[in-house]
């Protein structure tokens, strides 16, 4: 029997749990998504945002909304580590502990993908004429969508490793996630940041969210005006590897497991 048997059974278990609340969660996510798209995509155009800004915004929103789902998972995991410790049952199963942590990141990425994939048709409906399907490079979009969500999954794993408890989590949103999101090109492109000041542009490059946004927009709206697609892919895979490796080390120490 190998670790993979347990690995896939654990993912299957998580998906069973995920589907039970899927529609409730999707309605919550959709409300936030629609609110954001209407406010930023339409009302902002009344304030002078360029034509096509709605499509620009929608793609960024689709790219990042799975993250909302995953950060919730960090909270659940931290609560578990401080309470029931169901993870301890997993850690005595015939599976290596590093595989347990890699499964967690992957499982979170899958649920993030499932949560945000339905935002594509919803986004298209909201900005119907502004987002042309002919602009989409489908294989690039699939590649970047999967890569972005894997990054969210393993970034959340890393957060679980660095946060001590639930109190820290409440600070996480305000201190880290919100700035990372807002300065990660959620409402503007990297080129706009660079045009404002090259220093701001270069500093932005340390934020992985910029690669998520730019990569998704390059795939869904066309390469023009965004960071090169392959730079975004390579940088995100670098961040995925780093978060997975460091998150694994930290969780191993934190849970004192073999």
């Amino acid at each position, binding site marked *: 029997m190998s670790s993979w048997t347990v690995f896939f059974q654990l993912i299957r278990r998580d998906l069973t*749990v995920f589907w039970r609340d899927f529609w409730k969660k999707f309605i919550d996510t959709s409300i936030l998504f629609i609110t954001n798209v209407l406010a930023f995509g339409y009302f902002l155009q009344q304030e002078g945002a360029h034509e096509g800004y709605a499509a620009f915004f929608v793609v960024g929103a689709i790219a990042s909304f799975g993250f909302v789902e995953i950060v919730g998972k960090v909270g659940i995991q931290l609560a578990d580590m401080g309470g029931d410790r169901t993870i301890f*049952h997993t850690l005595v199963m015939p599976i290596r502990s590093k595989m347990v942590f890699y499964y967690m990141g992957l499982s979170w990425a899958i649920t993030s993908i499932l949560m945000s994939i339905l935002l594509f048709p919803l986004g298209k409906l909201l900005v119907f004429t502004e987002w042309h399907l002919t602009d989409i490079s489908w294989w690039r979009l699939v590649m970047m969508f999967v890569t972005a969500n894997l990054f969210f999954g393993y970034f959340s794993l890393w957060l679980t490793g660095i946060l001590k408890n639930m109190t820290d989590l409440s600070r996480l949103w305000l201190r880290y996630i919100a700035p990372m999101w807002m300065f990660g090109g959620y409402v503007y492109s990297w080129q706009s940041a660079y045009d404002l000041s090259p220093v701001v542009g270069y500093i932005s490059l340390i934020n992985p969210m910029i690669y998520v946004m730019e990569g998704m927009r390059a795939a869904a709206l066309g390469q023009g005006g965004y960071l090169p697609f392959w730079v975004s892919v390579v940088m995100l895979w670098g961040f995925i590897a780093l978060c997975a490796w460091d998150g694994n080390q930290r969780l191993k120490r934190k849970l004192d497991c*073999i």
Partner: protein
Amino acid sequence: MKKLFLRVEKVTKIYFDGSRILKEALKGVSLDLYHGEVLGLLGVNGAGKTTLVSILATLHPPTAGEISWQGRSIYDLLLSYRSVVGYCPQHPNIERHLSLGENLVVSGRCYGLSKHEAEARKMELAKEFKLEEYLESNIDQVSGGYKQRFLIARALMHRPQLVILDEPTVGLDSHIRRELWGVIAQLKEQGITVILTTHYLDEAEKLSDRICLIHGGTVRIIDTPENLKKQHQKNNLEEVFLKFVDDQDSRNF
């Protein structure tokens, strides 16, 4: 002749806070565990019982020392060793979003049972542990006694050769305790090796083939209940234990 199942040699466990030693929970514990025996681990709170069983369940690593199974380190045979061990922890660590029945099946499948086998085993254990009417309930809907029964049932899903029960009867009323005693006695009848930590001396005396008394992170006594009573000229294990605890200078032992 007794057949060796597990050998624990000079196992220590030190908890650190950075580089500072927080606690030395185990100080060179050595013991042998034989096939089919029930080993009762006794000790006051903080003696190191739970630390030791969590190491034997491979939840936590020891700081030093060796544990061997089938003549090799359990860490070299980690996945094989884990697949023959069933661990029932002190606190219920049960997935809340799944029913008890689903929890059992998931656990079984993680240990390599097919869907059909896991379902069949679930029903078998549900009957044995009187959990049938709670299979659709989740953890919050059952009493402490049933949670404990469930934890033992879950530990047995994959038919382990070694079952580690960490204070399985703590906080339960005497009626349910007695029922669980029957379950542990059944495990023994089935030839399963059991490590049982408990605070209840009557329980340890009744169920254990051998008693291992841990105090201050070291094994102070390990023998059969009968030998201990005879050796210390006491009528029951409780008196032996009290004599030990009262005796500040344990060199008498």
